[in-house]
């Protein structure tokens, strides 16, 4: 009897839970759908662009079909013949440029090679006496290079590692080995290194600046706290673009900062801040600071003053008590704040673009460049993959270290 009652009560509670979780799903459904449409699907599309490669296969279908079975030696006459037919067709359809652009990514001088060859081959009415192979080599000896064929082979798709490898300055040579990319194409490792370097620097400076502020917010006199909190939050209520533009004004050689320093006779020559690394870091730190202060404050606000007092009463000097008791207790806040600022810094675009020089641009700038100017979606996608992977990896490390399940920034 008792068991039966318990059972039925249990069932009732179970169905209650079901109803509750159904309500929860319904409540978040609009957001989920929104995120799916405007975030998840475009993201998946961009990411998939980093491994898809079907332009060449679509425009030059016959040569691509033949090349898929390439044995890494100079191809036979049949391949040249197929290529000649494809070129005639692409010249007629005015699509050769797309192929030449794609091959130019992998092959220095690829654009000229393809454009020239296609133009000359298409002009030949019928197969030349010596065969297509000879004709190609006559137009440009580069057609006897295995590297040329490797580039063509690699672009026949439909799936490619070309862009992801390129994001790490790697490419596949004609023998099929992964090697360091030619010097003129090796910029991405340096850009990634620069991106992570700037993000690390910004994170560390933010931590050093935010820690005392957060401590004051958590422990300072109540009437001043409100004002300081408002000052911390103020940047968040101002447009990022406006703030960055303000830094452009402030950091100029004849800007407020240099003028002030000169007036104080601290410097005789203006400091070159704008379009230089220091300017980028100053502006990025300013933008990111609230995201460091807030998690730190949230953690510190929960640390009772009794802990420090207990440490001191037990005989620890205030510095020791701070180091051995207070600091470890703020670790979750430090981890959350650093993670937040670091991940945000990795993706900075506007600030370096406006305040920085050519050598201060970060990965996002190049993603933007490849999508809007160079129309190299594959490389843009590959750089985005690297950025996303780094972010996910960092989060996994964080959740492991902080011992939290799921997202927690408090």
């Amino acid at each position, binding site marked *: 009897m008792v068991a039966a009652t318990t059972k039925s009560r249990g069932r009732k509670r179970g169905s209650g839970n079901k109803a509750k979780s159904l309500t929860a799903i319904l409540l978040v459904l609009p957001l989920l759908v929104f995120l799916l449409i405007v975030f998840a699907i475009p993201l998946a599309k961009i990411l998939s662009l980093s491994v898809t490669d079907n332009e060449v296969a679509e425009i030059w279908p016959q040569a691509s079909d033949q090349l898929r079975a390439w044995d890494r030696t100079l191809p036979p006459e049949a391949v040249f013949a197929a290529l000649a037919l494809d070129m005639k067709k692409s010249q007629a359809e005015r699509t050769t440029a797309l192929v030449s652009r794609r091959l130019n990514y992998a092959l220095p001088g690829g654009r000229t090679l393809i454009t020239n060859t296609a133009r000359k081959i298409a002009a030949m009415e019928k197969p030349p006496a010596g065969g297509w192979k000879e004709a190609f080599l006559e137009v440009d000896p580069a057609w006897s290079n295995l590297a040329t064929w490797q580039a063509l082979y690699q672009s026949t798709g439909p799936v490619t590692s070309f862009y992801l490898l390129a994001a790490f300055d790697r490419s596949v040579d004609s023998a099929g080995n992964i090697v360091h990319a030619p010097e003129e194409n090796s910029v991405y490792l340096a850009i990634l290194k620069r991106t992570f370097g700037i993000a690390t620097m910004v994170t560390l400076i933010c931590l050093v600046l935010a820690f005392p502020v957060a401590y004051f917010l958590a422990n300072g006199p109540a009437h001043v706290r409100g004002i300081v909190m408002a000052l911390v939050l103020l940047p968040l209520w101002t447009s990022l673009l406006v703030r960055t533009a303000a830094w452009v004004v402030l950091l100029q050689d004849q800007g407020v900062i240099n003028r002030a320093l000169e007036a104080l006779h601290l410097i005789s020559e203006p400091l070159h801040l704008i379009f230089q690394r220091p300017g980028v870091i100053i502006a990025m730190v300013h933008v990111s600071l609230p995201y460091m202060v807030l998690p730190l404050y949230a953690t510190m606000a929960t640390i*009772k003053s*009794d*802990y420090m*007092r*207990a*440490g*001191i*009463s*037990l*005989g*620890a*000097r*205030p510095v*020791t*008590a701070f180091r*051995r*008791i207070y600091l*470890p*207790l703020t*670790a979750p806040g430090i981890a959350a704040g650093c993670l937040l600022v670091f991940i945000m810094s990795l993706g900075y675009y506007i600030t370096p673009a406006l305040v920085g020089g050519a050598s201060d641009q970060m990965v996002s700038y190049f993603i933007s460049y490849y999508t809007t100017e160079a129309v190299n979606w594959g490389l843009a996608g590959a750089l985005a993959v690297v950025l996303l992977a780094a972010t996910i990896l960092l989060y996994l490390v964080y959740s492991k270290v902080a011992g939290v399940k799921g997202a927690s920034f408090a």
Partner: protein
Amino acid sequence: MPEQQGYVRFENVSKAYDAATFVVEDLSLSVAKGEFLTMLGPSGSGKTTSLMMLAGFEQPSLGEIFLDGLPISRVPAHRRDIGMVFQSYALFPHMTVGENLAFPLQVRKVSKAETKRLVSKALGTVKLAHLIDRKPSQLSGGQQQRVALARALIFEPRIVLMDEPLGALDKQLREHMQHEIRALHRRLGITMVYVTHDQDEALTMSDRVAVFGNGRIQQLAPPEELYESPSNAFVASFIGENNSIRGKVVFRDVNLCKIELTDATLLTARTGDVQQFGEDATVSVRPERVVLNPPMDGSTVRLEGNCTDLVYHGDHIRVCIDHKSAGPLVAKIPNARAYQLPKIGDAVLFGWAAEDAIALKQV
């Protein structure tokens, strides 16, 4: 038990956060070595501030505190060698029980082997040796309390301060811990200063109790004296239950005085802090001293009133009586068969021995 008088001494100590109000005002207090002294008072009475000044977390605005004959106002808290147990226990959540106990020894540069020995000895004392590797969050409230106590004692401090250490425990556990702390104090003979707002705790545990009110010590006395002879109306109403009857002083000498109620009834009582003829006074009588049908003799006060309520408490019965000028009164009648209890609405004769009442200045 108390060996050395004035081991801890507050001399005219005042503490003010602004010019207008003193949190603690002109406090002078002496604690003997080995004594268990409790600072008792309502919140805001200055007891915790006094404790914090002794611990070194607050500075006196005026006056000086002496420990073992030396002034300590300029000694930083970490060099005072004073153990402290906090209401929140303040066990370090990122350290295990063992690490918490080792902390005061590590900062004193005690050797590793000695630290290990002392930690296991201290945990043995509070019967928690098996929990050495647990984090504080994995302990029950009572266990945390014992760890906090062990941590405050492990470095053999000169005195141990406790700030409402049992406030977070439930009633049963609190009584058990009171007993344990008392036993520990007896065994170690260490000087303890204990802050609480719980008068039962103060009465059962202390050698002496300092009752704080409005930033001042209202009375400093052993528990019996505090209860039997409160020095003023604040102490009388704060410690234990109390019947207060308002009237005017019509006669006063050193031992006895007579108080006249509004209907000209005269009550004889011991002389408390009432000073002069005609003064407004309160006669204070403990409910357990009120008897029904008191004997007819010269030293007993006899009054007549109406029984308004009877409340059964098991070991005693509370009889609520309304008297036309003394107002509502409560009598605690022991639950014994011999007693003939009145019914609600009955007229009752009640009274008390004159020396069980004390006349205090009205506040």
